[in-house]
């Protein structure tokens, strides 16, 4: 295993080892014939022509959005839903590097990767949805609409995408066996993390602030001056939930790509994350009611929209919070995982509600068409495949063999750059997490 580290980048041996997973091309292609890949291929083969026709004939072909409802699933799901679910990177990086909770170090890389892929595909969704996607760089280079919250979002998503790429670079350079580059990359990590937190604070809340200019259009139950804060706080616990889900899924479906030690630690870490999610989730729950009281919109609770609001707040926010709490107190990891899944559903539901359902609430709504849903499914499928491709090749949930020795000494810090602590210390630090609270 160790000699792979010495294979130079793009040499034949490197390609065989690092692209085709040590198999011959024939073997590799045969290994792709799995039921999962078959379903994925069906979805993608159906979706790509739809996207092609969309670029040839206009957005109307693949969307049910209209002049009254300009934003459809692509933004509702892909941008407004995708970005909070990709807050994983900034949450774990700041937890470990800034707040010094080093026991979570093994989750930083998967979190940064989830964030990076999530943002990248938010941009892909944007490219599908924009009328003139080739004008996407204009806010950066040509014309600065500084009074627009979307201008802020555009810059921040672009900058944060780059930041996360930088944060993930050590893993890439390890994969490329480029030791010098890797050393340079790890040095900027702390700066990148702080920069990433600033950007995330702003653009997570900015996604909510985009709706501030629509007081007469968004339903009063969802329109509130608190909306940037609501979006920011909910992005934290949705990010925590995404890490719980992601690590659980990888351990379940790609066990060979997760280090044994990480597998063993995972349940304990999951409980810790669940505790954080429960706290931020309850904060969010309280904020939702504060916002409602602030606007004095109680009267709307008796309407159909009120029923949906109550379902969202109780069913998709409070319920997962209770599950998180039970899970953490009784050390039942399954509870935490179910709660995490429910949270992700709740966040998507909330963002789609704000962008689509509660928007222009006085007008009759139309359900997204099958083509719109299919294209979303296509992009999400590609996203999953890209994520799997990276996890299968890069050291995400494990140490790269070449740096493993360094890491044992450095107790799993990203490239050992931030104060190595003995393994014993890490285990000790974790101790208070594991027993019931």
């Amino acid at each position, binding site marked *: 295993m160790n000699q792979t580290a010495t294979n130079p980048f793009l040499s034949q041996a490197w390609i065989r080892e690092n692209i085709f997973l040590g198999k011959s091309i024939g073997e590799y292609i045969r290994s792709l014939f799995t039921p999962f890949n078959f379903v994925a291929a069906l979805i993608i083969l159906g979706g790509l022509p739809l996207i092609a026709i969309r670029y040839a004939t206009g957005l109307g072909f693949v969307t049910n959005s209209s002049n009254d409802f300009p934003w459809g699933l692509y933004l509702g799901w892909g941008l407004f839903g995708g970005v909070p679910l990709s807050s994983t990177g900034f949450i774990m990086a700041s937890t470990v590097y800034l707040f*010094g909770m080093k026991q979570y170090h093994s989750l930083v890389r998967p979190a940064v990767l989830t964030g990076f892929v999530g943002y990248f595909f938010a941009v892909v969704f944007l490219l599908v*949805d924009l*009328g*003139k996607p080739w004008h996407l760089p204009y*806010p950066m280079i040509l014309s600065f609409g500084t009074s627009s919250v979307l201008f802020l979002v555009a810059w921040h998503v672009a900058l944060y995408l780059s930041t996360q790429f930088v944060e993930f670079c050590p893993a890439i350079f390890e994969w490329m066996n480029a030791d010098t580059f890797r050393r340079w990359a790890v040095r900027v990590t702390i700066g990148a993390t702080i920069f990433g937190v600033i950007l995330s604070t702003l653009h997570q809340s900015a996604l909510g602030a985009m709706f501030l*200019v629509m007081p007469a259009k968004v339903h009063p139950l969802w329109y509130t001056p608190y909306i940037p804060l609501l979006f920011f706080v909910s992005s934290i616990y949705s990010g925590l939930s995404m890490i719980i889900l992601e690590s659980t899924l990888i351990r379940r479906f790609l066990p060979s790509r997760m280090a044994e030690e990480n597998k063993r630690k995972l349940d304990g870490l999951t409980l810790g994350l669940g505790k954080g999610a429960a706290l931020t989730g309850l904060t969010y729950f309280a904020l939702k009611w504060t916002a409602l009281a602030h606007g004095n919109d109680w009267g709307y609770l008796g309407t159909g929209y009120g029923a949906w609001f109550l379902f969202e707040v109780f069913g998709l926010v409070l319920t997962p919070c209770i599950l998180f709490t039970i899970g953490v107190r009784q050390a039942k990891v399954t509870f935490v995982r179910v709660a995490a899944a429910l949270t992700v559903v709740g966040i998507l539901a909330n963002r789609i509600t704000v962008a689509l359902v509660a928007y222009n609430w006085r007008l009759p709504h139309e359900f997204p068409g099958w083509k719109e849903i299919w294209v979303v499914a296509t992009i999400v499928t590609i996203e999953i495949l890209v994520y799997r491709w990276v996890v299968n090749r890069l050291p995400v949930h494990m140490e790269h063999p070449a740096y493993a020795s360094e890491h044992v000494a450095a107790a799993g810090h990203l490239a050992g750059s931030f104060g190595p602590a003995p393994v014993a210390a890490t285990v000790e630090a974790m101790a208070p997490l594991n027993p019931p609270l």
Partner: protein
Amino acid sequence: MKENRRTFLTWLAGSTGALCFRAKADDLSAVGDFQGYPDRVGMLVDLSACVGCRRCEAACKQVNGLPPVSVPLGDKSVFDQVRRTDENNWTVVNRFIPGPGATAVYAKKQCMHCNEPACAAVCPVKAFVKTELGPVVYHPELCMGCRYCMAACPFGIPAFEYHSANPKVTKCVFCNDRIKQGLLPGCTAACPTNAITFGKRSDLIRQAQQKILQKPGEYQDHIYGVAEAGGTSWMYISKVPFDELGFSMDLGNKAMATYSYGFLSMVSAVFMVWPAFLGGFYLFSKSREQQATEPTGPDANKQGDAR
């Protein structure tokens, strides 16, 4: 050498200042509590004079090179549904019957050309611009097609070419080119009952006030557009309450853009405060950790090396 440095610093300060000033002047149209350009033009529609002939629709299409009307002008079935503006219809006339048996009232709908337009404020590339003359104009060469303008417009006016591979956002542009040449906007010139009056906005407001005062009780004591959503260039007077004619009465008198000022002003503060706050936190946790690992001397050294 010293001289050079001073020159450089002066130049730097000067250009920074100039840049700030320039940016401020440029952004006036979209940012700040802007009262509007004093001599801007406007339109005043007397809804009681409109007979629903839709010649404004036809003229608008002709002047702006849009496809001709799909429902013939005489066909009243077009009024069975309340229509909105779309990519081929920059202005539409709708019919409202206020109460049983009442005579129909027609209301023309088009871009209101806000004093401080939401579409211009939210556009990340400044594709929509409020001109000094009054019209809110569109620059398709900048537009990304994000449709935030459509989402933000309190009057639901901008429309998108959903069936074009190179789409534009479309709306009434106040016949900007025509009025710059001293011509009347297409719809105004075509109106057979002179229900639309073009003029300086401040003059129009005075006329409308006079008209309302002339016969007390005949007109609604309200000029729609003077204050709505921060004020608009198009204004309406009516003998029938506006809320019965499809006009939104819950927009408030603040420009929609002002609702996001608070958030936007926070951005630079976060950029200043967060690094200090988070950096401080980092240093704090690091020093705590250092103290904890102090006894294991070699490790502490190693940590120092890694810096």
